[in-house]
């Protein structure tokens, strides 16, 4: 029975919660009612057996529990929730068919741009991810209290600012979907390399991000960008064993042992990318995934099709004309044409001003100067980069590069 209960929880929880929020009109009441219904299930199902439609049973039971809660609430609390009460007295059937899938409304509401990015991440993981406040707090290295406050404030804003529980119209969709995918990618990367010093891979967050991306893919089958994001995540995940060395220091793409890349993940990523590219038009994640695919397609770094990568960055700039994209394009130009050409782009004063303080800018400059044999300047730039990050693993990486600059024969490719 315990295994059966756990299976139901894993399979149906997010869909049931999404539906309840739709019916009841607010997060807290839905979460509390679902808790009540779950308690009832745990106590009655061992005797009655698991219902044929466990999700429907939970929705119906939770609705009744919500009414109970509202009835026993104080008169002023009832007045405040008058709308929720109205919603649940509508005839909603007997709960026997498949539950309507409100998960898209839930995802788009959690990732609404009116909420801060941290709130979007916290709300998405709590509501759709089924992660506890404690688990999310630990993953992002903030206190449980701080995270709980964020979630409370976000729910408050949803209620008070009138953020509607809906899937955006097709006119709004590209921007709104982009925001959802950005949250999922952030979650994925949080699992990949935690924000502070130690180099650990939090596999749970990566898996969670991939799972949620798959939910979006299933619910929006005519959209290419979720497929492209999933492809990108698979490519990145393929490199997890090669990405850091035994001491936890990052290894550049160029220096990674490609035999340690997970072939199954690469294949899965390529299949997802093919499906994405079959749909028009190709969006920003489609372009980024294509760039990643060109890297994984090269059996050796010197066989990478850098010219094609530059062309993809040109197209990406049309979508995201940002300093970081221009920086990455400059790196590709350095490889496709020459380090001097790349450095000329990196040294553009507008770019330098925009990325002032960003440690990867200084590190990129340092790398290009190193390839040009301008050792003194490279070292200076590496030191600037070192001072701009608190990440211990990155410090180790930079220290290694500085040592290699002092012994030119024992270094990475130039």
């Amino acid at each position: 029975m315990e295994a059966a209960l756990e299976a139901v929880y894993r399979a149906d929880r997010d869909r049931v919660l999404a539906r309840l929020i739709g019916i009841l009109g607010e997060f807290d009441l839905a979460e509390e009612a679902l808790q009540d219904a779950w308690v009832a299930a745990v106590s009655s199902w061992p005797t009655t057996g698991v219902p044929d439609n466990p999700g429907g049973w939970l929705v119906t039971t939770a609705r009744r529990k919500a009414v109970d809660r509202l009835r026993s609430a104080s008169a002023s609390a009832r007045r405040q929730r008058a709308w929720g009460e109205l919603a649940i007295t509508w005839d909603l059937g007997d709960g026997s068919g498949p539950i309507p899938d409100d998960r898209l409304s839930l995802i788009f509401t959690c990732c609404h741009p009116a909420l801060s990015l941290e709130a979007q991440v916290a709300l998405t993981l709590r509501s759709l991810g089924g992660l506890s406040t404690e688990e999310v707090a630990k993953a992002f290295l903030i206190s449980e209290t701080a995270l709980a406050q964020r979630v409370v404030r976000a729910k408050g804003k949803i209620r008070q600012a009138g953020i509607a529980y809906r899937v955006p119209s097709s006119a709004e969709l590209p921007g709104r979907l982009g925001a959802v995918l950005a949250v999922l990618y952030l979650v994925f990367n949080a699992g990949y390399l935690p924000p502070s010093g130690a180099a650990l891979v939090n596999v749970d967050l990566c898996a969670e991000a991939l799972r949620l991306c798959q939910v979006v893919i299933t619910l929006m089958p005519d959209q290419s960008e979720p497929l492209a994001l999933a492809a990108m995540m698979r490519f990145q995940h393929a490199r997890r064993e090669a990405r850091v060395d035994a001491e936890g220091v990052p290894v550049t793409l160029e220096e990674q042992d490609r035999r340690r890349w997970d072939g199954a993940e690469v294949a899965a990523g390529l299949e997802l990318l093919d499906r994405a590219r079959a749909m028009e038009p190709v969006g920003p994640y489609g372009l980024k995934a294509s760039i990643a695919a060109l890297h994984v397609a090269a059996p050796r770094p010197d066989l990478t099709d850098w010219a094609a990568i530059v062309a993809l960055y040109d197209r990406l700039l049309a979508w995201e004309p940002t300093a970081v994209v221009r920086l990455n394009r400059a790196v590709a130009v350095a490889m496709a044409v020459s380090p001097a050409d790349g450095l000329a782009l990196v040294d553009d004063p507008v770019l330098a001003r925009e990325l002032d303080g960003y440690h990867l800018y200084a590190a990129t400059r340092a790398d290009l100067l190193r390839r040009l044999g301008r050792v003194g300047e490279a070292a200076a730039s590496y030191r600037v980069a070192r001072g701009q990050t608190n990440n211990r693993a990155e410090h180790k990486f930079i220290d290694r590069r500085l040592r290699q600059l002092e012994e030119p024969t024992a270094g990475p490719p130039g």
Partner: protein
Amino acid sequence: MRYMLIIHNDPELHPTPGSPDWDQLMVDYAEFSKQLVERGHAFTGDPLNDPSTATTVRVRDGQTLTTDGPFAETKEWMSGYYVVDFDSLDHALKAAAMVPSAKFGSVEVRPVAEM
């Protein structure tokens, strides 16, 4: 639900009165109001005179303090407002993006607290 759209101008970007850009701005505002009416949104709204005409009043410990100028000297200053009935925040945000001054400043969208 009613929302206040609070319009702030950035004087460095805003058209100057009397210029052709200013005239176009007035035309755009007339069109914006017309759009609200055509889409069935009840609204009120007014432009405000510039901050040099403002006076700020504070009462502390029974003392009334009157100062020349707006409540805070900021780069962007409040230049007008609308109060409009919308079905949801998304509708309000869409309208806010259509406020002609959104190109030169910012539009804050805040729900009116219904008592």
